[in-house]
């Protein structure tokens, strides 16, 4: 199973995909905010979104799985 992991620790300020979406590698799936910096998280693989494990306002750590792909 393919998945997308957070590239830094921070608060989720925007979720850009939902289950059922077809996404391509490099596409922005989520925006994190930490230490005065906004960072988009990009899909590390292409595929269909099965599950989004983060909601707006959640705090995620570097390496946490945030999107699961089929």
């Amino acid at each position, binding site marked *: 199973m393919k998945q997308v992991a957070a590239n*830094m620790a921070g608060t989720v300020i925007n979720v850009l995909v939902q289950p059922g979406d077809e996404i391509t590698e490099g596409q922005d799936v989520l925006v994190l905010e930490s230490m005065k910096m906004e960072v988009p998280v990009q899909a590390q693989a292409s595929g269909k979104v099965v599950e989004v494990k983060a909601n707006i306002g959640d705090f995620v750590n570097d390496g946490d799985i945030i999107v699961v792909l089929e």
Partner: protein
Amino acid sequence: MNKVLIANRGEIARRIIRTCKARGVATVAVYSDADKDLPFVREADESVHIGPPPVPHSYLNVEAILAAAKSTGADAIHPGYGLLSENESFARRVLEEGILFVGPTPEVIGQMGDKLTARHIMEAAGVPVVPGCEQAIDSPDEAAVIALSIGYPVMLKASAGGGGIGMHICRDEAELRQAYQSAKGRAKAYFGNDAMYMEKYVERPRHIEVQVVADQHGNVIHLLERECSIQRRHQKVLEESPSPFLDTATRELLCNAAVTAAKAVGYSGVGTVEFIVDEQKNFYFLEMNTRLQVEHPVTEEMTGIDLVSLQLDIADGHPLSIKQEDVKALRHAIELRVYAEDPVTFLPSPGTITLYQPPAFEHVRIDDGVETGTQVTPFYDPMIAKVIVSGATREEAVQQAQSAMHHFLITGIKTNIPFLQEVLQDEQFRAGNYTTWFVTERGAASSTEKR
């Protein structure tokens, strides 16, 4: 001045407390929930809780800060850097409450905060500015016409922007038209002001700034320059003084231009005039920072002058106690900013510091805001410490910096120390041969090597 409230946090709050203690001035710290266990809160004589962690609810909450000053009887407020330090209406509110503001007048803060106004004032005073347009640009068509007259590449800038935010390099008309719309929208969202202007883009520039000091009686001097070209994400990571790029004649011209700039705006307090310097050593005014800067210790270690102490004297109405001829570059100083971030991607790395052991040698100064056990939270800037070294020569200062980095131990979070070590080992850096593109070009080189 008997009691100073510090409207800031972390290392700069500690730095200000240090000078206040040495002068016998009492201090008040203000803190958010996230910062209650930090050293600066303990070290101040008094401390006042001002709200929850996000800055709009605490460190930018003007009324909470003023209430803290009133309740503790503080007769002055030092804003540090960032946060409210260059906020014209905050400075005005402080004065309205009958409290001294450690900084220039609200009018000067306002004038220099607006990049277009600042540009006009400098041009009128004869300070060189980057070729560009003089008015806010109203449409993409107008932008295209102006760009043609300046010549590509051009830099599209948000009038209210700063610190690299709101700037776009455009190499042709298509790029300019595209950037114009998005930049305007972003400027509105970020700064509440979408006025845009344009400048000639200087290729391979150096960022060199001059420290100025002015009292309320019209005396203005400079404390030489700082070279700040080593930047990542348009933010400085290493600064040094004297600049390895300037010759004596250029240095004199640059420093005199900074004094002219400060006089032109009727400046009082410590301030910094930033310049962009091209490969032929032509320099142009970039902006003026109307506050103490992060890198002020470089100047302090080079000249032996305490800038915070000068700030307090000036705010108190005293005339300058030093003259231009007293200012000498006694040593070569380098500052390294230690950030809680990934040393390769430069992405933030909040977390708990499980061990914090800064180096302790002669000629190594540590200005920090954390200790073992500190939670580095995601709410604030990632800078956790500054290491300032000095040597009789640049070579000696670089060696000192390497040794300091080698002995700095931080565990539990990622830091940029490995990155700083690489910079110090870089041949181009050692030769003093670098521009603001240093980090970008090094990154490109190392990713080519990996391939």
